[in-house]
Each structure stands twice: as C-alpha cells, then as structure tokens.
C-alpha cells in the first residue's frame, strides 16, 4: 500500500480524463489519473470515431471548435495523428421537414463561426452518385472528419506521462473521503492518493461520483450499436449522418465501412455491453437503403460501448456546486469523443485559473435541480443527434 500526495487527482482514463492529465502536466501541475481498467478501455476507445461539429447542440459548438483545432495539431502536440482525417461530415435529409432542419441548423452554426454548405437534391445526386433516391438534401461541413478511437486515449496518456503525469491503470477508485479542504482517494488495490483538487471524468459512472457529493444527476446508460464491414473499394469519403440519427457510416481508406444506428444493451454495473443483433440488422437495412452499394459488403464485427446520457443530451462540465475543489466532466451523451481533447484544455483552465476561456455555462451540474430520475425533471426538450 502506498500514499501519494498530488495537486490534482483525476478519476477516469477516457478521452476527458486523459486530455485533462495531459493539459495539467503541460502546465506543470502534479496530477494522478486513476483508471479502473485500461485507458480508453470504455466509450472513448470503442466509439464510432466521428469527429464532427455539425449537428451539435449550440452549447457544445465552441468546445467542438476548440477540439477541432487540437485534432488538427495532434501530430505536433502528441506525436501521432490517431488516424484523424478531415473527410468532411455530410448530414442527409430524407424528407422535406428534415431538409428544413438542415437549413435552419446551418444558420445557427454560422453564428458560431462554422460554415455548412447545404446541398439540394440535384446537386447532391451529382456530387454523391452512390446515394439513393431516399436522400433529398444534405448539409456538408468540410472541416469535420473522423479518427481511430482505439488510438486516442493511449496516445494522450503516453504524452501525459512524458510530460510528468502519473497515469495509473487497473486502479479502481473504491472510496473518496474529504480531508479538510482536500480529498483522500482510495483504490481497490489498497493505494491512497491525497489531492487538493478532484476531477470526475468517470464517463457513464460520473453520476455515481457526483452523487457521493450530494449532486445526483439523471444519467442513463446507453450503448450505441456498431458494426464494421470487411474492406470494399473506397468510395464513401465523408463521414455520413442523417437527420434523426438512426443510421450513420464512414469508410476508411483501407476499405472498411464502419456503421452504427440504434442501441445495444449495456450494464454499467456489470461493465458489460453487447450489440443487439436485431438492432444491427435494422441498421444494416437502413444503411443499404441510404447507400445501395453497401449491399455487396459483409459484416465482420459488431460491438458497442457504455456511454452516459443526460436528459438534454449535453454533458456536465464545470465546478461542483456542493464541494470546493471538485470538478466534473462526464455524461457526454453519445458525442464526447470528438470534444475530449478540448475538455482537457477546459478542465485544466478551470482547475488552475478558476475559469475556462471556452463558454461552458450551459453545462452546469445544477441544471437538473438536484434530481436523479428522468421523470422528476422539469420539462426539458431532448434534442440532438447524429
């Protein structure tokens, strides 16, 4: 058993936690990251790999822009690009109501400095002849792209270690106590970390930790259902989504098509998640309806991951309202991979400067009014998707 004293303790080695450790280490703060399994072993390592700004809740757009800037500089920052490519993100409308939705969203995005190009029926057919007649319009964000989720967290963690962070795997936080103004964090392997600051970056399990400090949130565990084909000739360049989000796909240059749609099953307590075959088959049908050429492909793998969703589909990012020194960044509601790199920058600013240069006001933990059940919520719209 050992005791370590540090400035910042971070719970969770997903994209949010690893990026936080990296930014803190760059700024010479001492930090210890505690990850129950392997870094990137959960949602951050098994997701679809979409890196998009388009379609996000406006509350997330400034974060997404900042993240996009970091994605573009990964090679110089951490020595690898994590297979990030600027393929563009094309969001498709399959009826006129959806087309109107795309047009309206493009207006909103422009206010945040994000340029989207709305493409009408004829133009989209000319540009993407492999799309089916189902498609009536599209909206293209040239600046968006995709990356390999399996590579991001280990690369962030390696860079963080090089910069001096203490990254511990197989270290499950089993107990957290207050000690004066600081925290005493115990791990299941019997070690102890003492810190003045605690960052809760525990993903789908972040609600467990916030609840310990009297801040329960109505977090729900959801598992996006994923599948991948064996390589076929490369023809889908942009990352593809649809209004409503019931199917999405992207192709990597080596030929595999990664596609998702619908939800698998997840058990956050048993830490088990499985794709559901019925859902997979339905997603495959939708994908073929959208891109008929996919009919000749063959699925070689399906999977899912454990993700924490909040009722308004945006995360909690910011200081605790009950406990000085505690900061939260969790519940990314299905789209936190792309913004993870910026979350690290934001959290390091919150911790070291007391404020973030990126607006995060809409992401406060007290927006749920302290209730932990969806049913108890004040009336709130559920909105965003792929």
């Amino acid at each position, binding site marked *: 058993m050992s005791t370590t004293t540090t400035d910042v303790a971070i719970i969770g080695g997903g994209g949010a936690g690893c990026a936080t450790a990296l930014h803190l280490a760059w700024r010479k703060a001492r930090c210890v990251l505690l990850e129950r399994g392997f870094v990137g072993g959960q949602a951050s390592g098994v997701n679809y790999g979409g890196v998009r700004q388009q379609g996000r809740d406006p509350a997330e757009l400034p974060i997404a822009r900042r993240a996009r800037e970091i994605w573009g500089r990964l090679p110089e920052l951490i020595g690898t690009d994590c297979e990030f490519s600027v393929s563009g993100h094309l969001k498709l409308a399959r009826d006129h109501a959806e087309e109107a939705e795309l047009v309206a969203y493009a207006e909103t995005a422009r206010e945040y400095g994000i340029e989207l190009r709305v493409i009408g029926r004829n133009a989209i057919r000319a540009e993407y002849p492999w799309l089916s007649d189902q498609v009536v319009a599209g909206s293209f964000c040239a600046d968006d792209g995709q990356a390999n989720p399996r590579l991001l967290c*280990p690369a962030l963690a390696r860079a963080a270690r090089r910069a001096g962070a203490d990254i511990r795997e197989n270290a499950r936080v089993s107990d957290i106590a207050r000690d004066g103004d600081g925290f005493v964090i115990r791990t299941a392997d019997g070690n102890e970390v003492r810190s003045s600051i605690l960052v809760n970056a525990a993903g789908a399990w972040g609600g467990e930790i916030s609840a310990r400090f009297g801040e329960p949130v109505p977090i729900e565990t959801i598992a996006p259902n994923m599948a991948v084909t064996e390589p076929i000739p490369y023809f889908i360049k942009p990352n593809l989504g649809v209004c409503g989000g019931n199917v999405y796909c992207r192709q990597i240059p080596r030929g595999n098509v990664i596609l998702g749609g619908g939800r698998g099953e997840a058990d956050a307590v048993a830490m088990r998640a499985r794709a559901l075959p019925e859902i997979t088959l339905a997603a495959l*049908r939708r994908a073929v309806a959208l891109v008929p050429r996919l009919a000749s492909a063959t699925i070689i*793998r399906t999977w899912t991951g454990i993700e924490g969703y909040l009722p308004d589909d945006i995360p909690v990012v910011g200081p605790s309202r009950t406990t000085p020194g505690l900061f939260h960044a969790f519940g990314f509601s299905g789209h936190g991979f792309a913004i993870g790199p910026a979350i690290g920058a934001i959290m390091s600013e919150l911790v070291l400067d007391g404020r973030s240069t990126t607006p995060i006001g809409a992401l406060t933990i007290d927006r749920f009014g302290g209730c932990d059940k969806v049913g108890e919520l004040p009336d709130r719209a559920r909105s965003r998707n792929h």
Partner: protein
Amino acid sequence: MSAAPPPVIVGAGPAGVRAASVLVAAGLRPIVIDEAPASGGQIYRRAPAGFMRGAAVYGSEAAKATAIHRTFDSLVDRIDYRPQTTVWNLRPGRLYTVRDGVCDELTFGDIVLATGAMDRIVPIPGWTIPGVYALGGAQISLKAQGCVVGARTAFVGTGPLLWLVAYQYLKAGGTVAAVVDTTPFATKARQLFGLLRGGKTFINGLRYVATLRLKGVRITEGAIPVTIVGSTHVTALRWREASGREGSVDCDAVAIGFGLKPESQLADLAGVAMRWNDGQRVWEAARDRDGRTAVEGVYLAGDGSAIAGADAAEIDGALAAYALLADRRVTVPEAAVAELRTRRARLTRFREALDAAFPFPAALAAATADDTLVCRCEAVNAGELRAAARDLDAREVNRAKAFSRVGMGRCQGRVCGPVAVEILAAALGMPTQALGALRAQPPIKPLPMTAAVRLAAE
C-alpha cells in the same frame, strides 16, 4: 408434458450426431444445425451426392464413418435438421442463423455446442503464396472432392494429422514431396508409454509413418521451416535440419498444420468462461467431464470444447446429451454414463500423451520474423505486433488487437490468435496465458449485408 422448446445442437460431426441420437432415444426432437451441406463433421465429412469413392476415403476409420452416417440418416425423420445453416450469433436463449443469404432466428432452452475444431497455423515466410493450404483444407479437398491440392505436395508442421494426411495423399495416388515435422523424434519417443494407451489409433499412426518411409518419402523431424519459395505459385519448401543443415524440396503445393484449436466462439458468446490448456497452448471453453458449463442450459461436446479426436467427440456428444437430460429430470442409464466417462478418461490420457509427443512449437511461433505476415485478414506482420506490444504497452491480447488490428479481420483471430499471443508474450516477457483470450465478437462468421435486407423482405 413440458412446453420447453426443443434442445438445439450446433454441429453435426461425431459429437453432434451422438448427442442427437441420445436425445431422440429419450423422445425429444432436437434441432440440429450445421453449416455444411451434409452431416459427418470434419473427419467423416461426406462427399457431394454422386461421388462414388464411398467409405474407402475414410481409410482405417471407414467403419466408424459409416456408423456415424447411418446413425444420422436414421435420425433425420425424428429431428429438425437444418443443413447449410450458419450460426452467426448467440444471445441468452436465442440463436441467429443465416442460410442461403437469409437471416433467421430461433429460441432455445438447452443447447449443445458441438462446433468442432480448426487448423492451427504457424506462419512460415511465404505462407500466403498461392499453393499453400492449411492441412485440414488439403484433406477436405481430398475427402469432399477427391482432389489433391498439388501434383507434388510438401507437408510441414507437426501433429498426428500431419502424418495422417500425408499418408492419405500417398494412398490416393498423390506425390508427397516431403514431410517436415518440427517435433524431434526423441520428443515423441519419450511419450511411448502414454501413446500405447491409444491402442489401435497409435498402431495406425505407426503404420502411416512406416508406409511413408517405405515408399521413400523424404522425412525430416525436429526441423525448422525456413521459407516457402514462389512468387505467383509455390515452387519449393526450405527448412533447417536439427543438425543445422539446410534442406529443400521442389513442390507445387504445401500443406501446413500445427495441430488443431477449438472453435469456441459460440461458447464464449454464451458466457462460458475460457480456460488455458497448457498442454495444447490454447484457450478452451470450461466445462465439466459431462460437458456441462457454468451457464445453465449450455453444454459442450467434442473438439469444439477440447481437442481430443473423433472417438472422444462421439463420447462427449452422448455425455452432453445425458447431462442435458439429467438436468431436465429425465432418468438416464447410470451404468452407461459411467462407462462412457471411463472410456473418455482413457482417451484424455492418450490425448495428453499426444500433446506432449507433438507439442505446439511455441518458441517457433514466438520467433516469427518481423516481416512475416501474422494476420492475413488485416495484413499485420510480426514486427508490427511486437511494436504494439513494446511501444504501446499492449499487455492484454484484446488491447494488442485494438492497437495493431491483429485478429480484427474476417476470421477474427481464429487463424492468427494462437500465434499472436506467443509473439506478444515473448516480446513482453510474460507467460502466454497472462495475455488473456481474444474475445469473440458477433458475427462469428462474416455476415452478408444482403442477408439483413432479405430478412426485411419476408
């Protein structure tokens, strides 16, 4: 009586056929699913209708083959037989199949997984050149089609099957260019006592070797395969003898086989724990001596749970069916079960001797050259795998898969997995089993997208 759904058997090899016959005798009507067009499994695979070579193709095992085929044929009216049907996924109580490109599903209560084995490969430089076959594939070509894979075929690897198939090629009129066994003669000789337990099987083995020698086939033992030569097609096989001398033979086909490994993916999906078999250096699904697993209603039989050969598979099939019946509170013939267990235990001891006589060459696998392809689906070579282990700290096999793509392709590591773990373990200085087992992910066999669409059309 009970409204329980009929038991399901996956696999119509010796294990599945025996399981079916016990269940039918108890008055049940099992559903028997097999992706092959006919029953028989690997060893007693049937030739397509119209082929006339008959039971002779099974050599010394002809009588057993005929018995299994007759048994199955006599059951066909009393079971729900679904040939050419692949199980691609399994969830608690539910099976997902694809047949003729159409998806289907069925509910099950009890299931016997008798999914058999597949070849084990150690990648020899050049192993992806056209003209190189897995040993089992070379044998299937002979059994199912009456064809040899080459005019001059070299056999390289280790294990009893290596000698058997070489012998079968010779008997069928093929030319055996050489048999290159990585196991030294002395290693086999040391197991003589244990091997004698195999009785007739062992005697047959000796006969295969003697015949090959008698016919002047070039034989070398304790050799290290160096390379398979060829550009558009195989032209030669090279190796290094135990003495250090280089050996080489011209050939137009090479059959590689380093023993077998269980097809345990369905058991894995069913939630059965995997355990490490140190003698065979593979992961296998955990079960008791009767085939019962820790997952209620899931039973395992035959080579799909532990490589032990066809005779053991038959016994396993019967035992698993009796276990299933006993768990359903059906009275089973205790004396018969006890006798089966005794015979099975004897075969297990024989198998242990065989495993020791023909050990999987873990050191050879671990030493795979950096530029040799390990995972052919994803084109990952040994050097890339070592780099993932060292630079990315992949100390668990599924991590190594995530980082390097090894085992991520269409075979899902069924071919490269056992080699990859040896390479990783050596690179990291860890015991092989400490790397864990590759997790099965559905579909366990590639699923055509059209199958999903065709389902919609129903």
